[in-house]
C-alpha cells in the first residue's frame, strides 16, 4: 500500500495468544476511507477478538493498533458498532428511538433529558435507514431485520469514523441481509466511513468487499477476494487441502477442519 492518506485503522505486528494457543502473529493491515474489509475465518480464529482489539476492549499480546490516529480505547466515540441480531426480550422497556438514542449518549452519566439536538439526530439516523416508523415501537416486538436496521441507525447516530460490524447478518433472512449490507455500503460511499465486516459467509458481501482478511488457526492472509479466496491460499492457511469452488456465482469452501459441507452453518461466538 502506497496510500498517502492517514489510515483510519493502522494495525501492525498484532499477535494474539491465549495461554499456549497462538491465534495469529505479525498481523498487520491499514484501512483507509471508503474501504470495505471483510474478516473471515472459522470459529475460534479470533474474528471477534480482532473486533474487541479495535474497540480497545482487549489488548493484543503484542503489536500496535491506531484507530483514527488514537489508541483504540480513546477512539471508541468515533466507532460505530453493529452487533449480531440479539433478540431483545419482548417486554424490554425500550423503543426504537430509545435504542438509537443510547448510541448517541447512553454512555454518559445522568438522566436522559430530551433535547432538540439529540432528538433531531435520532430522527435523522432513523430516516437514513428507513426506520422512522419504528421510533415508538417496542424493540422486542420488532423482527430481526427491523432490529438490525435500528442497530445501524444506533451505530450511525454518533457520526462514526469507522464502522465495525460483527456477524450482523446472523439469523436474518436474505431480504434483511440485503438491507443491512446496502445500508452499511451506502454510508461507506456517501460519508467515506470504512467498514470492518466480520462474517463467516463471504457470499452476501462478495461484490462489495475490497479486501478480505482471512483468519485461520495460527495463520492469516489479507488481499482482494480474488487473491485470498483461492484453493492455494486457503490450503496454505489451513495446512490441509481445501477446495474453493465457484458455484452459480457463490463461493463454497470445502475441506476445512470445521467443514460441514457448506461454509455457512457455524455460529461464531468466539470470545
Amino acid at each position, binding site marked *: 500500500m502506497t496510500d498517502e492518506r492517514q489510515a483510519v485503522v493502522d494495525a501492525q505486528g498484532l499477535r494474539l495468544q491465549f495461554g499456549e494457543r497462538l491465534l495469529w502473529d505479525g498481523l498487520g493491515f491499514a484501512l483507509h476511507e471508503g474501504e470495505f474489509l471483510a474478516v473471515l475465518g472459522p470459529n475460534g480464529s479470533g474474528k471477534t477478538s480482532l473486533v474487541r482489539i479495535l*474497540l480497545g*476492549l482487549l489488548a493484543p499480546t503484542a503489536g500496535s493498533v491506531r484507530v483514527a490516529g488514537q489508541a483504540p*480505547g480513546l477512539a*471508541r*466515540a468515533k*466507532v460505530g*458498532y453493529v*452487533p449480531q441480531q*440479539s433478540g*431483545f*426480550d419482548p*417486554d*424490554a*422497556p*425500550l*423503543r426504537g428511538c*430509545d*435504542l438509537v438514542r*443510547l*448510541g448517541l*449518549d*447512553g*454512555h*454518559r*452519566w*445522568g*438522566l*436522559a433529558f430530551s433535547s432538540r439536538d439529540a432528538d433531531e439526530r435520532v430522527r435523522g439516523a432513523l430516516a437514513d435507514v428507513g426506520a422512522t416508523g419504528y421510533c*415508538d*415501537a*417496542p*424493540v*422486542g*416486538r420488532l423482527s430481526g431485520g427491523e432490529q438490525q436496521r435500528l*442497530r445501524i441507525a*444506533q451505530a450511525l447516530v454518533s457520526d462514526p469514523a469507522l464502522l*465495525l460490524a460483527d456477524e450482523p447478518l446472523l439469523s436474518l433472512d436474505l431480504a434483511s441481509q440485503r438491507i443491512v449490507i446496502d445500508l452499511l455500503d451506502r454510508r461507506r460511499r456517501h460519508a467515506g466511513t470504512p467498514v470492518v465486516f466480520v462474517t463467516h459467509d463471504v457470499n452476501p458481501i462478495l461484490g462489495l468487499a475490497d479486501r478480505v482478511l482471512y483468519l485461520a488457526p495460527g495463520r492469516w492472509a489479507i488481499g482482494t477476494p480474488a487473491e485470498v479466496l483461492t484453493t492455494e491460499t486457503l490450503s496454505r492457511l489451513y495446512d490441509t487441502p481445501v477446495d474453493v469452488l465457484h458455484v452459480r456465482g457463490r463461493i463454497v469452501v470445502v475441506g476445512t477442519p470445521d467443514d460441514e459441507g457448506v461454509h455457512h452453518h457455524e455460529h461464531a461466538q468466539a470470545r
Partner: protein
Amino acid sequence: MFTELLGQHFVHTALMAGAVVAVVSGAIGTFVVTRGASFAVHAVSELGFTGAAGALVLGIDPVAGMLAGSLLVGGVLGLLSLRGRERDSAIGAVLAFGLGVGVLFLNLYQGYATEATNLLFGSIVGVSDRQLAVLAVVAAIVLAGIAAAYRPLLFSSIDPEVAEARGVPLRALSVLTFLLLALTTAEAIQVVGVLLVLTLVITPAAAAQRLTANPATAILLSIVIALVATEGGILLSLQQPWPTSFFISTISFAAYLGARMRTWSS
C-alpha cells in the same frame, strides 16, 4: 374502628415507611427485571435475613446485620456479573448456604421468636420514627444513585454488548445495580419481609413493562403499582386483621395479572 386507627401515629409511620419503600423498590425493579436478575433479588434478600439473624445472635441492630448481609452478597453477585444459567446455579448455591447459616443463627438466638417471624414476613406496623428516618435516608441514596447513572444503567442492562463497545464499564455498573438492589432489599424486608421482597421489587416492574415500552414511563408505572400495593395493603390490613404482606402481594399480583391480560387481549 378503621377511622380510629387512621388517626394513630403508628399507622401514619407505617404508611410513610410503605411509601418510601415502594418508591425505591419500584424504581430499582426495572433495572433488575431487564437484567433478568429476579432470582438474585431472592438471594440478596435471604442473605439479608442471614445477616439480620447473625446480628440478633450478637445482640446488635438486626437492620445493620441485614444491610451487611445483602450488601455483601449483592457486591459479590455484581462482581461476578454472570449471565444465564451459570448465574442461576451460582445464586441457587449461595442462597441455600446462606439460608442454612441463617437457620443456625436463629437456633443460637435465645430471644423472642417474633423477631425472626418479623424478618421473614415483615412488620410494617412496628416501624419506629427512627427507623423511618433511616429508611428515608437509604432511599434517597438509592434514588440518587439511579439518577446519577440512569443512562449507562439502562444501556448496560438492556443492550450490554453495544454498551460495552461504547465504553460503558459493564462490571462497575453490574456492581452498582446489585449494591443499589441490596440497599433496596434491606428496606423492603422491613415492610414485607424476606420471603416477599419480590412482590415489591419484581412484580410491579414486570407488570409495568407489559404496559409500556417507554423506559421512563415503565419506571414511573412500576413505582405507582408498588405504591398502590403497599399503601392499599396497609389500609386493608387495618380493616381486616390479616397479614399486611398478604394484601400487598395480592394487590401487586393483581396488577401483574391485569397487565398480562391487557396485552393478551390487544
